[in-house]
Every structure is written in C-alpha cells, then in structure tokens.
C-alpha cells in the first residue's frame, strides 16, 4: 500500500549548526512512528518541517492528504466552546451541519470528552484540554497527525490517560502519526516503529523491542541507556545493560562501591579490575557497600561493537532506505 508519509533525503536547518540531513523514512497509514532523539537533536524542527511550518533545504516530503501539527501544550480557541473548537476544522471546510454534528460527537467520545461539549476551554483541566485538542486534530481525518512530545508535560496519571487516548484515536481514523520524543517510556508506550535521531541523522529505524535489544551502534546503545561498557580484544567494545550482570559462582570478583535507585530498577555499582559496571539488584534486599561478589555476564544481553562509528548489527534488519 502507498505510505501515508514518504520522506526522502530531507535536510532541515535548525539552530546555528548544519542541521538535519539525509532523513529518509516512510510511515504507513494507521502506523504510529516515533522519532526519538536527545533534547536539541532537531526533532521539533523535523516535525515542523513535515507540517510545512519550517523550511527544508533539500529532499522531498510526500504526504497523502493534509497533515496536522499538534503543539506540545494544547492551544484551544478561548472564545469557542469545546464543541465549536472540535467543529472548527469542519466549519472552515464548509461541511453540512448534520455531518459536523455527528463527527464532532464521535471525536469527543473517542477522547472521552462527550459530556463536555458546551464547556468553555478555560473551565477545562490541562488533561481535558489535551484530549479536546486531539479530538479537534483528528476530526477532519487528516492523513497525518504530528505530535510533539504529547506526554512530556503530563504527570504520571495523566500520561497513562493520554497514552490510552492516543492509542484510541485510531479506532475510527486510519491516519498515520509521527510522534517526536526524547523519552524512552513515551517511545515504547506509543511506537509501532521508531527512528533514532543522533548526530543530525537517523541512526536506526526499528520496532521498539528490536531497538532496545539490538541497537545498531555504540552511540545508539549509549543513548538507550545501556549503561555498561567494557573494552574487549580486537579494538571492540562490549555493551550490556545492568540486567545482563548476574551473580555467578565461578565469575569475576567484584566489590560493591555504591547503590543507585532508579524508577527502572535499583543497581549496585561494582568495581571490577578498576572499571565500574552496574548490576541490577533486588531493591528490597540490595547488597551492602563493600561486599565482595563474583559475577558473570548473560551473553544474550551483551552487544559487541567494533568502535563508535561501525555498527556490528546488520542494518538490513532495519527499514532504513539509503
């Protein structure tokens, strides 16, 4: 099937540097495509370029129909009711009133705001305003919806609520979404596929599970938070997550030099041959600082890279077109 969005060889200027270059990807109808990158990587510039709001210096963007860009914080029209806000894209297209009414009610229901139609925007909470903005964005059935960190400004409860709302949008709308974020949780919660934007290029395109288990390069692995790196023979680096470090009877001797408590799990910092690595531990029964442990590596969690620039994982497993 023809993709909803086809981006080829795009160059997008931003900031004072050289800008993004050679950005190539495609998004199918009904697909949620996440662009993951650090703050300042040019994600928002890319999104605005896709929306036609920012200039591009090279390449092509082919969208099958209109694209709608949604601000990070919702911008509702302050003088219109919730109903009229959502009806706005249909009114300016001159749709008949009966169609407007049924589509506005369906859109409001899909974001669970059906009872709020007569309310004014200033009476809504932040989360409710977000949902209304989403309903207004999809009511005219755009081919492409562009979302800028849709969960970033929300507290944990609202994030889950918003995530469900975004996933629910595609129940009766088959448009594609491009979502930019710097947040791994947001990425894994929303993405069908993900592109990692590093060093002003797309470094990898993969499914979330594939990306997290097989990052294409050392830089991607580092960005994804594979905390441990150890040099191995042959000018290579072994990279592994704290979960790959296990207690092992005949393993290496290591000493616990610290503990780190994170949302993703508690780790013990081990000193091993002068290097520091982190190991996942039971947060309720962590080892004591100064304990001596013998540890080994789960080989399934270990990735080897020749050096920073050369990926050892074959790129054919991704959908990069070059």
């Amino acid at each position: 099937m023809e993709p909803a969005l086809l981006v080829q060889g795009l160059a997008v200027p931003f900031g004072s540097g050289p800008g993004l270059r050679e950005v190539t990807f495609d998004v199918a109808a009904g697909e949620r495509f996440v662009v993951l990158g650090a703050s300042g990587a040019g994600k928002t510039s890319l999104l605005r370029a896709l929306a036609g709001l920012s200039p591009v210096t090279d390449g092509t963007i082919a969208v099958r129909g209109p694209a709608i860009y949604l601000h990070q914080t919702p911008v509702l029209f302050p003088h219109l009711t919730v109903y009229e806000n959502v009806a706005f894209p249909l009114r300016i297209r001159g749709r008949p009133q009966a169609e407007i009414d049924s589509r506005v009610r369906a859109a409001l229901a899909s974001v669970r705001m059906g009872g709020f139609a007569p309310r004014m925007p200033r009476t809504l909470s932040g989360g409710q305003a977000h949902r209304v903005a989403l309903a207004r964005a999809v009511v005219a059935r755009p081919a492409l919806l562009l979302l800028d960190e849709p969960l970033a400004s929300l507290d944990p409860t609202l994030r889950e609520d918003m995530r469900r709302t975004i996933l629910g949008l595609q129940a009766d709308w088959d448009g594609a979404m491009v979502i930019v974020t710097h947040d791994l949780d947001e990425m894994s919660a929303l993405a069908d596929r993900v592109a990692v934007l590093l060093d002003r290029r797309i470094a990898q395109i993969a499914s979330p599970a594939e990306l997290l288990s097989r990052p294409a390069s050392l830089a991607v692995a580092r960005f994804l938070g594979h905390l441990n790196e150890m040099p191995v023979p042959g000018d290579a680096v072994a990279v592994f997550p704290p979960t790959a470090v296990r207690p092992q009877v005949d393993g290496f001797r290591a000493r616990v030099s610290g503990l780190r408590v994170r949302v993703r799990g508690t780790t013990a910092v081990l000193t091993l041959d002068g290097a520091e690595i982190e190991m996942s531990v039971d947060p309720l029964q962590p080892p004591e600082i100064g304990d001596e442990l013998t540890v080994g590596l789960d080989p399934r969690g270990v990735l080897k890279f020749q050096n920073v620039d050369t990926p050892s994982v074959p790129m054919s497993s991704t959908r990069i077109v070059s």
Partner: protein
Amino acid sequence: MGRRIAVVILALSALMPLVLLGLWSVGDHWFFPTLIPPAFTTDSWRATLTGRLGAAALISGVVALATAVLGCAFAMPIGRAMARLSGWRRHMASALAFLPVAAPPIALGLGLQYAFVTLGVSGTIVGVIAAHVVSATSFLAIYFAGVFTALDPRIEDEARCLGARPLDVWTRITIPIVRRQIGDALALGFLVSWAQVPLTLVIGGGIVRTLPLEVYDYLRAGETRYAATGALLLTVPPMLALLAARRERVAPL
C-alpha cells in the same frame, strides 16, 4: 464625613458646567450678573432638528463613524503586524505609527492639505474623513499592537494549521477573540474624530461644517445660547461611551 464632602464637591464640579450649559442653552436675554435667566426659549434646540446645529451634528456623526470604522480596519492589520515584530524593528514601527499623533494637527493638516488639493478632495467631507482616518489609524495601530501582543500567537498558528485560510483566521478567530477591544477602539476613533477641530478646519477649509466648528463660530459671534446647545450635543457621545464602559465586564483576553 470628609469623604462625603469630597464626593459632593466632585459631583458639583462635574455637573455644574453641564447645568450651566443647560441654562445657557435655553436662557433668553440673560446677562451678568443675573443668576437665573429672565426668560426662556427653545429656539436653539429646535435648530438641532432643522437648522445648522442639526446638520453639523449629522456631518460630525458621519465623519466620526466613518473614521472609527476605517481607522480600525486599517489599524488592526498594522497593529497585528507590529505585535509580531521585536527589538529595534518594533521600536521603529511604533515611532513611525506614532508620528501623525506626535505631530501638531496643524502641521499634519497642512501636509495632508497639499496632497488632498492635488487629489481634489480638499474642502469635501471625503477629504475630512480621510484626514481624520490618517490620525486615527496612527493611534489605533499603537493600541492594537498592544492588544495583539497580549494575544497568544499560537492561537492563530493553530487555526492555520487546522486548515484555516487567512480570511477564516481573521473572521473566525482573531476578530471574535478581540471583539471587546475592537468595540473600545471604535469608540475611541469615534470620540477623537467627533472632537477634532484643527484637521477639520485645515482640510475642510470652512466648507465642511462639523459640530465643534459650529460651536466655535457661535461662540465667536456671541450666540451663547446656540454655542451652549452645540456644546451639550458634543457631550452626548462621550457620556454614552462612559455609560457603556461602566457596564462592561472586565475580562482578560
């Protein structure tokens, strides 16, 4: 007690001139030091319906209304463009917009007169309206620059992003959001034109007789009764505007 006295004094100082004007407008053969007019007549008030005062009030009303509407129509896009500028550009635009206000009306009038004579509108009501509009556009543009600076630019961006054409953005988003401020601007444009004398005099060349000009002439001719009647008519629109302003709910943008 002290406060009550202050209020009474304030009320008297505001109302006394109006009361005196009222007396003057109906007093016949009334000269100093008589406190109350010896006789009353309503001939000057009848003149507001049929005579020069009525015609002048009508002309003033037409000129002021046209000035308010055209001034707002020009000043709104200018003010909105100014609000999107920043730094020295904003400063330059503000200074430029303010120039016709800062310049003495006589100077502005003479400059415009030269242009209007060539256009053949000097001494016509069209010319007077055009001159008033130049001045009104100037201060209303500065007013609207302030209004649009307070308006979140992302609201208009959002409308465009949702597919609105520029006209849709104006008619469905921008104008409805600032409709109260537009009302204020219309009132301001009307009132300034309504009381304008120097520009009318220079451009109108004494042919276009607005209400303040008639009041001037009556005063110079010693026709106190007619001058007082005209002056009372002049206070009607400002009073209405004040009453309307009092009733308005103060709402943020």
